[in-house]
């Protein structure tokens, strides 16, 4: 069990991590997501006692890392695959780590076999590829048979076979009751590996919930509705009817309609009553990647130039009135703009209760109580007020209409779930 409470880290004027509180529980793989520079590695380093938090604290099994007795037997970590002395052989590198906690040399050969490096054990690690370095780092983490494992970007540089192996390894370690905390950029990989997600942006907690809830809560699916192309008036009619019924309707380039805020049967009924034929009525299930993009789009620090330019233009269609995130409250340096989107993300549904414990409570609130087996689009009520009204409430970075906000200000506030 890893527990962070109010973790804050400042480097001079820059705040890398701000008031971060979360728990990583044993028995599941917990994914740690966030855009580049959002503070993932800094958090990992603070967990391992490498960096001293400016405020707050983080404990492993109730102890700060630096006070853990025989730490290598309790915590294994892969922080940086290249953090080895290149002039030392893989085996000697592991041996020096093993000797620290009285682990026998035979265990070194064992983990070398586990990660598949037995044939290059005697070779100097400077000649290793990134993938081999990752394997060596994973071997070092496994060395002490620890109950708590941290991996920072473990699949970087691995081949597909290696990625599959890491995925299964993580799951196996978790199924043995260990605490497994993995950071990654690869959404698809996280969707397959992790059961629980902790998402941060600009150093602050954005979300702390299970993968299924996360997708359900953040990436609002929608219904794709298509009317006969030969009769555009039918399309307009349906749009009017659906809008009147409280749904939100947007056009897709190919003429289909994206509908949120109405359940599938409702759309069908309304169409029937309006005497509109439907060619297509399909649910759209969002992927983790989409949910993640939706959640972090306002907290991205590094964006390519092309995107920036596009972002300065006024959002095309689908501006959501009244959805200005309250992150632009007085004192806040400004809300970062959403990325210019080609696609369209529906706003998240209101989230009753805080999804993470924060500094206020020691027991986390239950994750967003959305039955995950329901169609996500069926619960959309985007206009509903956010459930946590004080301060920057989780209004969510809405549509492209928000692109008018100036991104040049180093906004530390993120619109959603910022606190």
């Amino acid at each position: 069990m890893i527990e962070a409470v109010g973790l804050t880290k400042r480097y001079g004027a820059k705040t890398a991590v701000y008031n971060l509180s979360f728990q990583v529980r044993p028995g599941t793989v917990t994914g740690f997501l966030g855009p580049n520079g959002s503070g993932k590695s800094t958090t990992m380093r603070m967990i391992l006692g490498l960096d001293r938090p400016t405020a707050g604290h983080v404990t492993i099994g109730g102890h700060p890392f630096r006070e853990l007795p025989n730490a290598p037997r309790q915590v294994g970590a892969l922080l940086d695959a290249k953090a080895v002395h290149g002039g030392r052989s893989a085996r000697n590198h592991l041996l020096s780590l093993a000797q620290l906690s009285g682990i026998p040399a035979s265990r070194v050969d064992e983990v070398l076999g586990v990660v598949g490096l037995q044939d290059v054990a005697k070779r100097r690690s400077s000649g290793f590829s990134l993938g081999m370095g990752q394997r060596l780092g994973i071997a070092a983490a496994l060395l002490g048979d620890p109950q708590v494992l941290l991996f920072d970007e473990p699949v970087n540089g691995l081949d597909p076979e290696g990625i599959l192996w890491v995925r299964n390894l993580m799951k196996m370690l978790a199924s043995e009751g260990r605490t497994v905390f993995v950071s990654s950029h690869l959404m698809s990989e996280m969707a397959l590996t992790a059961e629980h997600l902790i998402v941060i942006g600009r150093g602050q907690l954005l979300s702390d919930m299970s993968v299924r809830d996360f997708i359900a809560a953040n990436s609002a699916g929608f219904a794709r509705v298509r009317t006969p192309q030969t009769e555009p008036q039918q399309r307009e009619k349906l749009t009017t009817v659906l809008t009147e019924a409280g749904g939100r309707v947007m056009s897709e380039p190919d003429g289909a309609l994206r509908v949120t805020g109405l359940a599938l049967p409702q759309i069908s009924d309304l169409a029937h009553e309006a005497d509109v034929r439907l060619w297509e009525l399909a649910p759209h299930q969002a992927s983790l990647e989409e949910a993640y993009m939706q959640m972090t789009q306002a907290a991205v620090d590094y964006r390519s130039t092309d995107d920036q330019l596009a972002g300065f233009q006024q959002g095309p269609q689908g501006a959501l009135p009244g959805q200005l995130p309250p992150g632009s409250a007085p004192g806040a340096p400004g809300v970062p703009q959403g990325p210019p989107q080609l696609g369209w993300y529906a706003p998240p549904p209101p989230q009753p209760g805080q999804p993470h414990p924060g500094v206020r409570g020691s027991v986390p609130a239950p994750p967003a109580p959305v039955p995950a087996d329901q169609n996500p689009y069926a619960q959309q009520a985007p206009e509903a007020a956010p459930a946590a009204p004080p301060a920057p409430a989780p209004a969510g970075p809405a549509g492209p209409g928000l692109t008018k906000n100036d991104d040049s200000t180093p906004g530390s506030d993120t619109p959603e779930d910022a606190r």
Partner: protein
Amino acid sequence: MHAGYVWKSEWTKIRSVRSTGTTLALAAVFTIGLGFLISALSKNEFAKMDAHELRFADPTFISFVGTSLGQLAMIVFGVMVVGGEYSTGMIRTSLAAVPRRGLFLFSKIAVATLLAFVVALVTSFVTFFVGQAALGPYKASLGDPGVLRAVIGAALYMTLIAVFAMGVTTVLRSPMLSLGILMPLFFLLTPILGNVPATRKVAQYLPDQAGGKVMQVVAPEGDIAPYGPWGGFGIMVLWVLAALCCGWLVLKKRDA
């Protein structure tokens, strides 16, 4: 976590990189080789000296002239032992495994110091005998007063130079920066300052200038040092302790 475990681990680290063997071998070769060369050349100088000059002749010290070059290899050894952790990022792996940073640092330095001392002691005795053999009739013998102290002192001096480099590197956290500062300092700056009369009074308290005193059996003509051989060595020890303390504080306080 036992200190013994950490020592063992540091020994594995130090013996498993090439720079250890290379730098220590270079230190021995430079010290012995240059000492032999200068001793052989000094044999002719001795023959031309009058009685007054012979009073200040120090055959023991002459055979240790090579330490001025050998100490540079010792500095590189000290810098590599500590700096290798920083330049490779290994420091994060190490500190994640040994959260008690003081234990980590002093185990590393203790192991490296012991190894350096063993090499320096052997080098010192070989240097002495080779040098004295080259001096022929003017040679000193190990039984002469102060000679054994000078020979062991030379080994201690070489060891402490390496430890000083380890301390400085822990403060600076970069091998390139440390070498860039230590090499010119000990190769050029302190010898020059120590030989220019105007700066001598201050420079004699610098670590190598003070510590080198322990290798002398006969004080050179016009020696103004207010300390004896062990006094000078003590000053050097203070320098080394200061460097280690600063290094320890930096490691303790700063983020890895």
